[in-house]
């Protein structure tokens, strides 16, 4: 593993296999009476969340604690720029306390990359703006693999607000590395700018038509659509979005019963995903959450347990 986990670019297919193998062991720990391993005893992990995310923050917090790291949460809403302190000053101040890993969430794309240039601690990107969310992609792939086996050659549809989704960017990269085929489905206004050249990558395709894609999907990943996007004129009404791109009850019927449905949460039930789909037996939404802890334990373990100054 590299020193930091900033992007799926930092993870090779072999790394992913290692992380998944470790995560599988960690997963077992979740079912023990004593859910604790001493591997990171004496290590300090700071969850530095400039943007709210109870889900990701608690997942990393539990992961750190089950590995016996001293895990501290620091949340600061709003950009530090508005408080007059530069991002650099903020993180250097925190790291001066003696930190081994900085798990960082920031509303600005690239913030974790920048911070990794300034600090000695290992930096884990827990979501940066509309850029990447590598731990989410890893847990998604891990969850799918446990459900449907190796992803090589399997067809995964990713549906929703691709422009503003860090989960999308990380997932496309990882799924392609693992040999899956990916079709990204969204209305043209929610496709990332300049996405067309991406589709030149092997196994990656774009579509504006969900109904054309679903019948051949081996897994479906629904992304959250923020209602605020309407003010940007990305689509006319929630109703129209649902009709075009929602995983409705009708579309659920098109999917095979063994096709897993992922959603990184929080879900907008009734908008991008119908309750019937969210609660279906093939929905792996809760598996994703539990896998999240195991995968994040694996990430922290591999970044921190190794040789000092590695």
């Amino acid at each position, binding site marked *: *593993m*590299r020193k930091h986990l900033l992007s799926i670019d930092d993870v090779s297919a*072999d790394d992913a296999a290692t992380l*998944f193998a470790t995560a599988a062991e960690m997963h077992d720990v979740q079912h023990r009476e*004593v859910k604790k391993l001493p*591997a990171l005893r004496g290590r300090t992990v700071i969850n530095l969340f400039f943007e709210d995310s109870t889900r990701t923050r608690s997942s990393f917090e539990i992961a750190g604690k089950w*590995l016996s790291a001293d895990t501290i949460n620091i949340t600061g809403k709003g950009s530090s720029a508005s408080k007059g302190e530069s991002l650099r000053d903020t993180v250097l101040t925190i790291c001066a306390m003696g930190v081994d890993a900085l798990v960082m969430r920031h509303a600005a794309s690239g913030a974790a990359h920048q911070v990794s240039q300034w600090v000695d601690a290992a930096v884990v990107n827990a979501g940066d703006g509309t850029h990447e969310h590598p731990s989410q992609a890893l847990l998604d792939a891990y969850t799918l693999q446990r459900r449907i086996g190796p992803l090589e050659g399997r067809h995964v549809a990713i549906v929703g607000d691709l422009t503003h989704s860090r989960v999308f960017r990380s997932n496309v990269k990882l799924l392609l590395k693992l040999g899956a085929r990916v079709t990204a489905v969204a209305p043209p206004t929610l496709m990332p700018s300049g996405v067309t050249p991406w589709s030149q990558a092997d196994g990656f395709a774009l579509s504006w038509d969900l109904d054309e894609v679903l019948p051949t999907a081996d897994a479906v990943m629904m992304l959250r659509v923020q209602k605020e996007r309407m003010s940007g004129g990305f689509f006319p009404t929630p109703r129209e979005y649902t009709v075009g791109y929602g995983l409705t009850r009708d579309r659920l019927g098109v999917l095979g019963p063994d096709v897993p449905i992922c959603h990184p949460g929080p879900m907008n039930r009734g908008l991008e995903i119908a309750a019937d789909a969210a609660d279906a037996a093939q929905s792996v939404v809760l598996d994703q959450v539990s896998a999240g802890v195991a995968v994040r334990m694996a990430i922290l373990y591999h970044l921190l347990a*190794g*040789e000092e100054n590695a």
Partner: protein
Amino acid sequence: MSAPDRTPGQGDLPAPPSGETPDGRVVLDERDVARALTRISHEILERNKGAGDLVLLGIPSRGVPLAQRIADRIRSTEGVEVPVGSLDVTMYRDDLRRHPARGPQRTEIPVPTLDGRTVVLVDDVLYSGRTVRSALDAMNDLGRPDVVRLAVLVDRGHHQLPIRADHVGKNLPSARTERVMVRLAELDGVEGVWIADADDDRPSRVGSDS
């Protein structure tokens, strides 16, 4: 990230069965190993007054097939199926930070609970005792056996902790500069125990071969 130099789940195994014979002097050959395991099996039964409540936990990697072989021998002598599992100690090692991070290996507890059982830990070599200490810590998080015993194929001395084995295949006084290599057919394609001078001037790292 770059891939670690070992396959996940293979721990500090050099590679899948290479069939390659290590350099050095043979200390135990295939038949010696078999005899030692047979003796250990009998000792365990004797000490435990039978196979009741016994659980064998091998410490990966080579402790696991050794535990399995002991269980096989107990079955043929006593006609009893002793539960065999594995207990990975990677996360519990006190030298984690001195090596590249290694992926944990399987921990499989073959019984619903270890509480009240007699656990025999099985490993290939007893050296510093640190692996066994880690194993005791790991077991602590899994349950509370009545009795824990330790069986090893080779005890090479130089213990650094107040730990000793209850059942030993062979006591092998060795210099710290020497390397002791156990190879088992299941994992390595060859079988036996070898001893050799270290490749370089560096004393062999305590803990590297248990």
